[in-house]
């Protein structure tokens, strides 16, 4: 029955969210958004769409859950090892020549990507002069970034990813295992600055040498993608780098002429 949700219903819900709470999901990819809403309705057993809408409107606590569930937070450490290998071999040596390194992880989710970067920087001897800005629109995932605690049963996979990315150390030296949890070392998080930032509505807040925004743009429609890419362009220093997810591209975007893809990985260098 949930396949019956009409686009008009979704429009109404999105308007409520914007009017009442300032969250603007209207330019998200509809196909994915609709799936998430259908999924949430069945998870939380709403007998009808009207009930979901009523709850979102009248229960600010439920709003929190709604935002958490509507956005996709799945992430991994060293996801796509060849991408991290390219950061290690091609990008960090160049960034290393700068006095400071500023990196922005936009849509960082629970932080696995940020900690992976911290490990790369540490191994390159660059962590001390780096700052990693970790931002997401969802405050709950940022709480997890702050804690730096991940399920222990995922460490085997992460360790394999790490080695495939060119890591030479014993991955388990980066965390302490305790009660099924892996707590990442404190010194990895020292340079991480955590803040909420909504790519739809918030503006540029600094100038960066490298911006990573991976697997976030796929949830946006073409127009919003272009707006966000402009925001990144404005937030990158000259010759800065932009990294997207493996299936994302600048190819169809308005800023493509200002950037040059450096290799087969989805990393672009700003050339103007």
């Amino acid at each position, binding site marked *: 029955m949930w*396949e019956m949700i009409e686009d008009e219903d979704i429009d109404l819900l999105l308007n409520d969210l914007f009017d009442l709470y300032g969250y603007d999901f209207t330019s998200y*990819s*509809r*196909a*994915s958004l*609709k*799936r*998430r809403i259908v999924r949430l309705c069945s998870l939380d057993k709403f007998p009808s769409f009207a009930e979901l809408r009523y709850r979102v409107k009248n229960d600010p606590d439920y709003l929190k859950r709604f935002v958490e569930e509507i956005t*996709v937070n*799945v992430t991994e450490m060293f996801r*796509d090892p060849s991408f991290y290998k390219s950061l290690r071999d091609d990008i960090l040596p160049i960034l290393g020549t700068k006095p400071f390194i500023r990196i922005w992880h936009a849509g960082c989710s629970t932080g696995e990507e940020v900690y992976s970067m911290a490990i790369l920087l540490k191994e390159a001897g660059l962590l001390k002069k780096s700052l990693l800005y970790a931002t997401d629109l969802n405050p709950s995932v940022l709480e997890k970034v702050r804690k730096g605690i991940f399920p222990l049963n995922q460490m085997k996979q992460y360790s394999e990813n790490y080695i495939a990315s060119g890591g030479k150390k014993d991955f388990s030296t980066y965390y302490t295992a305790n009660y099924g949890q892996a707590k990442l070392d404190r010194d990895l998080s020292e340079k991480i600055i955590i803040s909420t930032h909504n790519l739809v509505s918030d503006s540029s807040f600094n100038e960066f040498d490298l911006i990573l925004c991976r*697997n976030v*743009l*796929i*949830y946006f*429609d*073409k127009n919003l*993608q272009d707006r966000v890419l402009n925001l990144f362009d404005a937030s990158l220093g000259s010759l800065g780098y932009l990294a997207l*997810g*493996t*299936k*994302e*591209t600048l*190819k*169809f975007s308005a800023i493509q002429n200002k950037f040059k893809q450096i290799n087969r990985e989805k990393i672009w260098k700003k050339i103007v």
Partner: protein
Amino acid sequence: MEENRVVPPCQLLLIGGSAGSLEVLFKLLPRLNADLPFAIVLVLHRRSTGDSSLTELLSSKTVNHTSEVEDKEPVKPGNIYLAPADYHLLIEKDRTFSLDYSEKINFSRPSIDVTFESACEIYGESAVALILSGANEDGTHGMKCIKKAGGRTLAQNPETAQMPFMPNYAITHGVIDYVLDIPQMADFINQMK
């Protein structure tokens, strides 16, 4: 297998496969005509490490342009699109692809159900879906949507499938219009308007 109603022209052919489906595609793709008037979307269960060699392999079996989907790429008739490893593949109203990295469905990402259901919303009765060999229940739910919307649903003859479970599952759930072996599939697709 009689067909009395007016069959809507096919605008999108969806093919879902799991274990044992590559061999079928290797035989099927070379038999397909050039410049088919609809796009073909392949959703295959594969190892999560995205090796681009599968695209090249499939590409070598057909004259039709074959590529792995990139986010927001338009769906163009005549082309063959492969769902990328480790993403769900969706279709938007404006007939562009969207990728989605949400939870696995039926232990799979890409999930055949996810793409079939999404395509069904957009293409409805002008979607045609084919389910191949596999050891998974994935696909049946999506086929059900397409059948309900008036689209045509095909299954590989389980007797010819390396893993008969997947086509069998769809057939026993009553969501399949035609059960075909490989040469019949090719004829069906080539004659489809």
